[in-house]
């Protein structure tokens, strides 16, 4: 063996440039591969007279071209293909990122979203020439209203947090219509960070609600906190520890008695579809995440889609426009909505995601949707059962679609949840959600979804059990993980202290 091959792989990698097996080949930035005169495009000949931009635009003409890269088509294919191989993905294996519902993204969804008549529809075409897409939107709205048990819906919000914003705007507009916008929104300490951020941008004070010993809503504390200045409670149900609020009807009553509303963060709807409907248990307004529950792809961080469903009394406040069906059966957008909170986005929302979500609902039908929910809950409970002897379960309450452990036992050996997560990567899995929810110190939040087979679940369980053993025997191995990736742990402190946010030529 030569000295070179004994050197740490990363060192060799840096020196030689292309030593990795194909799957993790090095790839420079696209700008570093550029050379003047290379082209990956060809425009058709201009069939009208050419123009002199400087003459037409005067001072407004661009003098220096933007420093974009110049490559050929094959180089672009290889560049982005190589980059893709550096990602972990649902298509490669289990992605138990709690709260994110990383389920299978069916490919027929992608196929139908690209059908010409749908993909090339301009948002300003006349309604009568958009009846096909309006049918799709109408059917999806009806399905989501039925699934949530609500009365009305808007599909306009572009993601979950945008849906929260829209939902709280509805709350505020309704309170205003009652004569008092009220001052505060109550948010449990187990909530997603988007909840308090949303309340704040809607002009509300955020009041924290401490969870009870079971990690759920403390009814007495809630009753003491809710008053005539409370606009709403933002509740995630099942909660972020994967627990259904058993006292949900009492929670709704406490709020409604004081004229406050119950907002539900629907991030965890994957535990409920077909089994129970938020509209039936007292929720007034809620958002859904089509990219979680309804299988539209997460795409490395979007696009999402965050429809907001509400009870009848909130309908007048929905964002404009709203879809309605005329007596002749044709569908149209209604813009004249005097009580509306206004638009939250240009056009009609992330329409391409509506197509995908509807394709998912059609592929499932009522029986498939219910079975999906049951399998998601079954998988989480299976993992819980198989790991609860090795990992601390801070709340013994029954789990729904996700299970939250803590690193208490491992932390005693100096190994934190973040270390265990990194070590999972070496076993071929994406980590679970780390250090969230905040009510569980050192949380391991595991959401397997329904998309995992017994075989994959067992592999994951084996990995987690093996890591627990490593923590006892060779904690350093875990603390310095991952050991199998093309980069090791990255220096985040320097990245934040001296931000380099773009490439610059030498």
């Amino acid at each position: 063996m030569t000295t070179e091959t004994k050197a740490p792989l990363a060192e060799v990698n840096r020196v030689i440039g292309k030593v990795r097996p194909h799957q993790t080949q090095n790839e420079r930035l696209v700008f570093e591969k550029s050379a003047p005169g290379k082209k990956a495009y060809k425009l058709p000949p201009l069939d009208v007279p050419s123009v002199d931009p400087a003459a037409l635009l005067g001072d407004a003409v661009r003098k220096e071209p933007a420093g974009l890269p110049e490559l050929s088509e094959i180089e672009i294919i290889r560049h982005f293909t190589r980059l893709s191989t550096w990602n972990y993905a649902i298509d490669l294996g289990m992605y138990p990122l709690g709260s994110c519902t990383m389920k299978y993204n069916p490919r027929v969804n992608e196929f139908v979203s690209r059908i010409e008549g749908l993909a090339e529809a301009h948002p300003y075409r006349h309604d009568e020439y958009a009846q096909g897409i309006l049918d799709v939107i109408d059917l999806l709205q009806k399905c989501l209203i039925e699934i949530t048990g609500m009365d009305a819906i808007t599909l306009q919000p572009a993601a979950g947090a945008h849906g929260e914003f829209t939902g709280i705007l509805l709350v505020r507009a309704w309170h205003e219509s009652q004569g008092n916008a009220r001052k505060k929104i109550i948010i449990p300490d187990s909530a997603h960070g988007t909840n308090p951020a949303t309340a704040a941008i809607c002009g509300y004070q955020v009041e924290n609600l401490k969870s009870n010993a079971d990690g759920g809503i403390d009814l007495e504390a809630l009753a003491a906190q809710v008053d005539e200045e409370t606009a709403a409670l933002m509740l995630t149900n099942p909660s972020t520890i994967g627990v259904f609020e058993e006292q949900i009807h009492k929670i709704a009553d406490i709020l409604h008695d004081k004229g406050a509303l119950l907002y539900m963060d629907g991030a965890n709807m994957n535990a409920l579809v077909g089994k129970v409907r938020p509209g039936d248990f007292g929720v007034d307004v809620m958002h859904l995440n089509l990219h979680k529950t309804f299988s539209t792809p997460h795409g490395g961080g979007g696009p999402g889609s965050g429809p907001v469903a509400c009870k009848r009394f909130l309908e007048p406040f929905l964002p404009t426009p709203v879809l309605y069906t005329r007596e002749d059966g044709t569908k149209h957008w209604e813009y004249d909505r005097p009580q509306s909170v206004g638009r939250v986005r240009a056009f009609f929302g992330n329409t391409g995601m509506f197509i995908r979500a509807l394709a998912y609902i059609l592929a499932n039908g009522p029986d498939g949707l219910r079975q999906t929910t049951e399998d998601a809950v079954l998988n989480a409970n299976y993992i819980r059962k198989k790991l609860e002897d090795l990992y601390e379960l801070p709340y013994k309450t029954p789990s729904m679609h996700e299970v939250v452990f803590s690193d208490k036992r491992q932390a005693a050996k100096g190994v934190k949840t973040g270390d265990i997560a990194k070590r999972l990567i070496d076993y071929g899995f994406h980590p679970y959600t780390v250090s969230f929810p905040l009510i569980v110190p050192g949380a391991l939040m595991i959401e397997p979804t329904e998309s995992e087979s017994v075989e994959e679940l067992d592999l994951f369980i084996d990995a987690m059990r093996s890591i627990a053993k490593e923590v006892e025997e060779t904690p350093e191995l875990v603390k310095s993980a991952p050991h199998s990736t093309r980069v090791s742990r990255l220096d985040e402190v320097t990245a934040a202290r001296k931000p380099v946010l773009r490439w610059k030529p030498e």
Partner: protein
Amino acid sequence: MRYLPKSPAERQQMLAEIGADSIDDLFAVIPEEYRLRRDLDVPRQQAESEIINYFRAAGEKNAIGYASFLGAGAYRHYRPVIIDVLVQRGEFLTSYTPYQAEITQGTLQAIFEFQTMIAELTGMDVANASMYDGSTGAAEAVLMAMRVTGRHKAVVTRTVHPEYREVLGTYLRYREMPFAEVDYVAETGRVDLAALEAAVTEETAAVLVQSPNFFGVVEDIPAIAEIAHKKGALLIVSIAEAVSLGVVRPPVEADIVSMEAQSFGVALSYGGPFVGVLATKEKYLRQIPGRLVGQTTDRNGSRGYVLTLSTREQHIRREKATSNICTNQALVALMATIFLTIYGKEGIRELAEHNLAKAAYGVKTLSATPGTKLLFNGAPRFHEFVLQTAEDSAGWVPRLRKKKIAGGLALKRWYPELGNATLWCVTEMITKHHIDTAAKALAAGPVEA
């Protein structure tokens, strides 16, 4: 159900290992009275072929095969084939926000490339990883300017996309931050600089303009910047047609640029998903909303990328965050990145010049038809223009439709003072033949209305 990887026997086995008698044991916590005892009333489970047939029929029910002169914030440009080939790789499509940097370097490096390209195009120092779209991006830019300046008012030109202004109104509704609208000059379609100067005060946090504006007219950015900066306000330039930057001077005087990048290889898809992006000067970096990717090194000194400056964000700062944005438009930003790599330095200019030439021919030909007049002739344009027709669009729309042409967008609903005016957009997808056909169909109507 074909997406579920379990046999009935496996389900039973798992239940047995958990110690549950039936699946309903696992749902026992849900109060009895709320449990759904019936099937959901949604369509029955369908075969893949049925699903495809359903959506094909929906597509055909929409108008297809039209040459479209519609623009107004949603533009039809050619989408090179390899964009969809690459973004449909499962490793991009089915991964999520790159919190675990070691196994998401692909997404992270691509976003870093996107940020660089946007900074290059806009003339700004830095850009974020994306916003939902141009409308919400512009609203977030105004909120950002408020944080930077500590002021609470905004001035917005009436030539900013009307739906962007509506969204801004919604965002500012409960923030005690009124905004004043400044009108345009009737001859040029550009913002009235004297009125702007009068509207901007020491309390103004931001001046928001769009360029090319909603009428397709390029604004005088240096002059507007001077007015804003004189009073200590920030200038936000919203760009709805990103391809314009191939030939139009970037708004380097701006403090924040909010761009809709749909034109870079993203399908119209009836208005979304699109992709917004904010770019700004380095000094305002810590007030920018949304995700940012930064370059760093790993323990072995290898170059790598991470999400950075996340102390601005909701998952850390909660109610004190710069925005509540979480999921953004990463995959759509990747489409734009691939598009910009395909066209590159020369191609984006050539593409923009083709649009410029086609629009110039469109202006000349369409405005020459009897009863038709070009509005705002006194200022430079990119590829959109406003035509005033003697005849209401309700009259000529059917004649164009017969020729499989979707004509310009009626402006009356937002600009009643413009009467029968319509906004036309000519991209490289429109041929000379389409323009000539549209002109003939327009001319075929009553000359004097």
